[in-house]
């Protein structure tokens, strides 16, 4: 916090207030997205920009993530993700996850060859320990 304040030539208090304001806005956005997607909110992690939820109609767990580069994405738990065969969709998903991991400073071994569903599971569990991989 102090180093950011030093770089921006401002006070620590101002940086802290800005961080809190950003987290509040992010929380509002994540909750709105959850509502729009008919999700029941289980837990909100504003610092990680992650919302855990549950879709009662689909009977599936869901996660909402935010990345500065790609924006908001809603994820659903898949018991058999190999059923998804759309290669372009899988490529875009992997790209999103790699960018998300890079943003948060997470390193995953063999990420390039990994199925995006598994990659997502590893990254989310590192971000939020409650999400088990």
């Amino acid at each position: 916090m102090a180093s950011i304040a030093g770089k921006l030539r401002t006070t620590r208090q101002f940086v802290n207030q800005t961080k809190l304001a950003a987290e509040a806005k992010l929380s509002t956005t994540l909750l709105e997205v959850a509502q729009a997607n008919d999700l029941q909110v289980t837990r909100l992690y504003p610092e990680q920009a992650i919302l855990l939820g549950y879709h009662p109609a689909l009977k599936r767990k869901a996660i909402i993530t935010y990345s500065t580069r790609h924006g908001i994405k809603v994820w659903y738990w898949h018991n058999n993700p190999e059923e998804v065969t759309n290669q372009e969709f899988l490529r875009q998903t992997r790209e999103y996850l790699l960018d998300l991991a890079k943003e948060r400073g997470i390193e995953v071994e063999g990420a390039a060859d990994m199925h995006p569903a598994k990659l997502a599971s590893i990254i989310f569990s590192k971000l939020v320990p409650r999400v088990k991989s």
Partner: protein
Amino acid sequence: MNPLRYLEKRIRGWLPKEPQTPSPQLEITRKPPKTRTQVWIVIFIMGFASGLLGAYSASFDIFSRLGIYVWLILICLVLSIVAAAIYVRKKVSEERQRMRREV
């Protein structure tokens, strides 16, 4: 297979919802309605011009027989369709390039 290894290999995880809308690539292959309207305008203008040309040639008695007059109109119409086809190809390729840039 060892059940433990099977469970380790089995993929389970998180994926976003697969998009239901057609991909932008499919959208590009469709002819845009704007171009279709332009084609009709070009055909109409060229047809009108060919009719005028035919009428003038008849009034100046360049081609005295009716058959030649009709032939002249037909040739002009064919030329207008060819010109419209070239115009359409050019417009469609321009539109595709523009959409690719946007995508």
